[in-house]
């Protein structure tokens, strides 16, 4: 499913968080969003998920304006931070909760969870712990798995590689690519990890102070140099 962003603006006081005239994301794309702290990555995602109000402009998922109806929630999965997790549930309870309210039955849920067994490495499901007692990495895993639970046509993950150990980072990269191939879902991933972003995203959007600074074609892995140049320059 395609996403259209039109004249989207959001400011916090004097600070411009997002200022995008036009951005089109085609159905089935995996998009990487990169940028330094404060570039507006998370704010952009929150605007796309209607979690904050835009000062101006619209976000469309297909034909649906996300600020007008809740229909888009049926085909969108997202994980941004801990505020998506109900931390007094155990991971299994949380998955069951999300599954039930999304109309996924128990058998489907078990099959789905099995597909993530390598990623979760036996430390998330089957535990008698509450989510709040899990490590940051395992919380991150719960959030990512629950976002994908609906088999969403649009998947939005904010810094999914954070807190994960190297094996899990590798596993999630593989899972995202596989999911994209199998379902044709549109995936948006923000990250500070340039290598992972370049590895999985054929298209990378570089944000700076809320503005799209570069829209980089990475179909052949050519974005790495451009990104390194940009961030190197910033460091200097």
């Amino acid at each position, binding site marked *: 499913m395609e996403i259209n962003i039109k004249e989207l603006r959001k400011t916090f006081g004097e600070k411009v968080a997002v200022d995008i005239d036009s951005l089109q994301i085609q159905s089935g794309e995996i998009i990487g969003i990169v940028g330094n702290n404060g570039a507006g990555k998370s704010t952009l995602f929150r605007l796309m*998920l209607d979690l904050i109000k835009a000062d101006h402009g619209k976000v469309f998922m297909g034909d649906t304006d996300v600020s007008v109806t809740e229909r888009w*929630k049926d085909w969108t999965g997202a994980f941004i931070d801990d*505020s998506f997790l109900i931390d*007094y549930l155990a991971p299994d309870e949380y998955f069951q909760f999300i599954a*039930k*309210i*999304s109309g996924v039955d128990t058998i489907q849920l078990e099959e789905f969870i099995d597909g993530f067994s390598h990623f979760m490495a036996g430390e998330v499901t089957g535990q008698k712990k509450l989510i709040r007692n899990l490590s940051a990495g395992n919380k991150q895993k719960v959030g990512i798995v629950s976002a994908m639970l609906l088999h969403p046509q649009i998947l939005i993950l904010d810094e999914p590689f954070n807190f994960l150990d190297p094996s899990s980072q590798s596993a999630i990269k593989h899972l995202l690519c596989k999911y994209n191939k199998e379902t044709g879902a549109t995936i948006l991933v923000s990250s500070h990890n340039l290598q992972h972003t370049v590895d999985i995203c054929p298209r990378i959007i570089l944000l700076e102070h809320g503005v799209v600074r570069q829209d980089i074609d990475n179909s052949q892995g050519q974005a790495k140099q451009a990104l390194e140049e940009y961030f190197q320059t910033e460091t200097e």
Partner: protein
Amino acid sequence: MNYLQLYRLIRYNASLKDERHPMFEKNRFMKFLILFMWLYYAAILILFGVTLPLGMKDTYNGVAAFHVLDGFVPYLLIVDFWLRFILQETPVQQVHPYSLLPIRRSFLMNVYLFRTGFSYGNTYWGFLLVPFGMIAVLPLLGWFSLVGWLIGWWLLFIANGFLYLITRTLCLQNLVWVLLPAALNGGLLALMLVPDQNPLDMPFTKMMYGFALGNFLPYLIILLLIGVLFWICYHQQMHMVYNEVGKKEEIEIKNTNQLNFLSRFGILGEFLKLEMKLRLRNKQVRTSFLIALGCMVMLSMLLNFTEAYDNEFMTNFICLYDYAVLGMMTLITIMCFEGNYIDGLMSRRESIYSLLKAKYYISSSLLLIPIILVSPSIMIGKISIWMNLGYLFFTAGVIYPIMFQLAVYNRNTIPLNQKLTAKQASTAQNIISIAILFVPIGIEKICVIILGDIWGFVLLMSIGIIGICTHKLWLQNIYHRFMSRRHYIMEGMRASR
């Protein structure tokens, strides 16, 4: 930086804590209300301080007024003690942010304990005691005794503050410890029974007189007591800081299929389970619930087993609040706990509507408790079945819909495992929590005056039944209003997280 500068800096930081709380900063009404209440109670205390000595002169034949007041030391200490549950924090949470800084933890703890001892709160009773002492002590014993008498009172309140800290910290670990202050209060009151012939022989009267006369012994006793309490507090709080730093509060779930019988209700069942787990697994939510439940039981006991409130007004009052208290105390913060995971809820379709329904069904089911609790009073004919039914349906069909309106206005997140102070509550919460105490009983009075006892209650019951039958409509209405204000609500919740 020397210790004095450090002390000042820590004091300054602590004073900013409440002032810069997101809810307090945005809440001008609350600032005004707090100042108003502060002045209001100060004025009341001054009024008592001036009028009591004059009244006591006539009532207690020949005994100096301040001796009479001194006899009431236990009462004042008990009131002071329980008020601290609303107003005073434990130092553990305050020390935590400094734990990795190059400051000795023992120094920090001493700073916070000294702040507790020398806090302005311990001198607030001065609004009562200073004018009282000026009228009752000064003319009889002179300036020296007045100062000694006031210092004596102040030292008692300091000791009370440390005692509160000890018991409060224990209560945070296990609510059963609330029995300790209850027992201590009982002990204090028992002291009042020791000889009852001459007020001057009462232990507290003697002690306070000793303060006034500048006797060495009472000062030694109270200072020793403060020293011991300080020592206990210090070690207890230091132990708690280590616990807090290496906190590993883990609830082991025995069975993740708990409450699965609710699954038969589909999506609603999932939200019913969620609501139950919210109440069972989070300390703050559980404590609020248990306190509300305690109030309910207490009101029922008053109704069933005492005759002190056997007039028509009080019977009505107690019966109504017996039904309403649980909902009033738990629904005042409706959606505030959900602020912790509001983004997750808002990214699922119509989840807020299902959540509101679940909250309503659970709150209504809990009305079974007062039905059972007040049944002895119905059986002995103390309250009529009509009154009982009237208040039951009025609560579920009128009071609850009013409380649920707060879902649209509450926009502050309350941590699931920490205490809410008055300064962190929103304007709407404060207004409704005050209004809800008086409005229902007013409506009840009007109905009963106009229609008489039975038909008044039948009317209340009918209004309630209408509210219950239309619950889906008004919940939908609340849900739509919530959604139209969602960005504003979520912004507040995020800011106060």
